[in-house]
């Protein structure tokens, strides 16, 4: 049976996450199609057609699909799903919004945020904020799955010049239930939090929004993305899209620097797969030190300027 992958895209660009989900799909094996849903998405389809292993790209380009609202997107995918054995998407806010709805429309279960493929129907996924790893087996004929992008290495672009065939989907799902009003997107020249090689995060210990600039200057030097703990987001020091953790973003960079973060399990759930963890905290008993490769017991207001000077 074939596999359908829902492409993740933002601001007219195919997101890195898609190449990671394609990698997971290739481990399952079989003919692989990518579905691009949106309005004005030709360039995204073109980019998707160049991913290694993709056999065909389906494009549903229509005003009704702008912003990938759950109702029309799931209805469209329900139309297509019968031709497939698996439907995959990134465990992003888009994938998490749409795929459970699709699964229920098809009367099947959904498997969330897999981190390993054990076979065509068997997968590993974290539960309890990553404090246990479950191996689950789906007995449904259609398997609807979201994938934790950081757990799979992205596929490269194909070597051949012409990519996979691109095919337009004419089906247009009606939608009189939900209307897009507005969005406030964080604008940043920094790398995406989910795929950055270096992430520096601040917690409640940062004390204020202004103090987050101490992190920004270091991030500039390291080409890092900036993250935050929930306490820092709740206190208004950083916007919600920066939250790392069980209920925020999951990151697995080469280097993660936690500053003024205590290390609650909900925070660790989002970053403990980083290759190297550095913690800067003035409390030598802070739990973050139990997972840190390098711990520095220091006042962050002294350590950060020193770090910035010496990098």
């Amino acid at each position, binding site marked *: 049976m074939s596999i359908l992958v829902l492409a993740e895209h*933002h601001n007219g660009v195919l997101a890195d996450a898609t190449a990671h989900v394609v990698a997971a799909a290739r481990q399952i094996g079989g003919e692989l199609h990518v579905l691009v849903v949106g309005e004005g998405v030709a360039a995204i389809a073109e980019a998707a057609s160049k991913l290694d292993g993709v056999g065909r790209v389906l494009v549903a380009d229509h005003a009704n699909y702008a912003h990938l609202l*759950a109702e029309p997107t*799931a209805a469209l995918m329900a139309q297509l799903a019968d031709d497939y054995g698996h439907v995959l998407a990134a465990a*992003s*806010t888009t994938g*998490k919004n749409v795929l*459970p*709805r699709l*699964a*229920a429309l098809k009367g*099947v*279960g*959904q498997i*969330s945020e897999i981190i390993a493929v054990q076979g065509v129907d068997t997968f590993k996924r*974290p*539960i*309890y*904020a*990553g*404090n*246990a*790893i*479950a*191996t*689950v*087996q*789906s*007995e449904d004929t259609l398997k609807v799955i979201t994938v934790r992008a950081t757990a799979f290495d992205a596929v490269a672009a194909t070597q051949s010049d012409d990519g996979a065939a691109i095919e337009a989907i004419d089906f247009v799902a009606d939608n009189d*239930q*939900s209307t897009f*009003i*507005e*969005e*406030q*997107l*964080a604008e940043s020249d920094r790398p995406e939090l989910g795929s950055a090689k*270096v992430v520096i995060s601040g917690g409640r210990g940062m004390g204020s929004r202004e103090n987050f600039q101490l992190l920004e200057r270091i991030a500039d030097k390291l080409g890092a993305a900036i993250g935050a703990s*929930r306490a820092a*987001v709740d206190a208004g020091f950083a*916007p*919600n*899209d920066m939250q790392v953790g069980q*209920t925020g973003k999951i990151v697995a960079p080469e*280097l993660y620097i936690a500053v003024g973060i205590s290390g609650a*399990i*909900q925070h660790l759930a989002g970053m*403990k797969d980083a*290759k*190297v963890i550095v913690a800067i905290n003035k409390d030598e008993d802070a739990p973050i*030190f*139990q*997972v840190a490769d*390098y*711990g*520095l*017991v220091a006042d962050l207001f002294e*350590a950060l300027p020193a*770090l910035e000077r*010496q*990098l």
Partner: protein
Amino acid sequence: MKVLVAIKRVIDYNVKIRVKSDHSDVDLTNVKMAMNPFCEIAVEEAVRLKEKGVATEVVVVTIGPKAAQEQLRTALALGADRAIHVETDLRVESLGAARALAKIVEEQQPGLVILGKQAIDTDNNQTGQMLAALTGLPQGTFASEVAVEDGRLRVTREIDGGLETLELTLPAIVTTDLRLNEPRYAKLPDIMKAKKKPLEVRTPADLGVELASRIKLLKVEPPAERQAGIKVGSVDELIDKLKNEAKVIS
């Protein structure tokens, strides 16, 4: 408008869980249980809608074992008017929970249904979206703000890139994110009063739903443990280690 809130009994979020030695599941014997934090936020939002005069009645529902009535009583103490318990000792997956909830929606005809965005045990993040599909209703997931205006619902959602605002027709399904509100604590007199509020017990059979899951739990293992590393004495030493030992910066 009647508001229906689905709540789930889960392990208390402060508890560090252990995996059973036979790797069959997580060991929940004698572990402190509580209402899922996202469900507390859902109850709070419904109660606030009632206090604002938007909601006329708040009904809470759970699907789970007898002990889950504790969490229903907590919700009643927080301000819900009545409770429905769909009693089962089965391991209920999201689709099963959503099927049972869809029956309750059909019976109760709420104008709005609020669920948590994810349960902190299975971390599935599915039930609300599935319920929306089964009832054919629109969904506003990961909500950080909701308002009823002119018979429609305005929902601000926390998305990966920032925030998104949608308008939904009612009835609608909403799932809560952390920043929707800060739940209150139940006061003692309210806890006493809650004991007298109505709690109706139902069974999956009388609702006519099949809860059996087609997703089998084969094994549960502890994650790979990270070893604690070393403490460095200064920023200089830290930079030296990162450059020369870990080789993650140049």
